[in-house]
């Protein structure tokens, strides 16, 4: 849909995500809207207190799938820049496990693209979350 070539950045990393740096990646001069989604480790899940999370990835395939999703989003909506960074390993409560920065000339594209990206990631990208509780742990893919 867009004729310009969007800037895409994909990464899977250990350790904290630099959110400020990611914000700076988002947005070209033609973009009037930037949207940053941050997925965070929260302190509860299905009624149980969560102490921390552990993320595992099939890294090489996950990067490919993330790239496909970013390309797909940029094809569907008028996106100037798209950055997706997923963290793996231990993530403590309040820390970001994933950040998605999308920018577009008008805000509607940014909202739609951002939502599409996170919804699709949760369906297709080979990354798994394990929740830790006071009394044990569980792979979240088991639950459904």
């Amino acid at each position: 849909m867009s004729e310009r070539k969007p800037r895409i950045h994909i990464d899977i990393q250990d350790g904290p995500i630099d959110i400020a740096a990611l914000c700076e990646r988002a947005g070209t001069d033609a973009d009037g809207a930037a949207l940053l989604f941050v997925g965070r480790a929260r302190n509860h899940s299905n009624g149980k207190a969560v102490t921390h999370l552990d993320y595992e990835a099939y890294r090489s395939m996950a990067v490919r799938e993330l790239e496909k999703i970013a390309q797909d989003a940029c094809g569907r909506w008028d996106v100037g820049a798209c950055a997706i960074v997923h963290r793996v390993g231990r993530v403590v409560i309040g820390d970001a496990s994933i950040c998605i920065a999308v920018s577009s000339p008008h805000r509607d594209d940014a909202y739609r693209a951002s939502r599409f990206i996170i919804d699709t990631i949760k369906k297709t990208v080979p990354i798994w979350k394990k929740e830790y509780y006071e009394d044990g742990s569980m792979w979240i893919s088991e639950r459904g």
Partner: protein
Amino acid sequence: MNVSIKTFASVRDALGYDERTVSVRDGSSVAELLREVLGGAPGLMERAESLLVAVNEEYAAGDRIVRENDVVAIFPMVSGG
């Protein structure tokens, strides 16, 4: 022929390894390979339908024919984000 198996998350926990090379007969499908690999882990066999398979980093269906040196990853439903 030889095929590389990769496992992740609960599948790895159940099988007890994250990588292994297995020998299967030529022309095996993904479904046949799965029965072979999961055979020793009854808990996994029961929920084989819910597992996902990728061949050379692309999702593959059960009828996909596996070739020599393919990398076949077996894992549960994803839950990242």
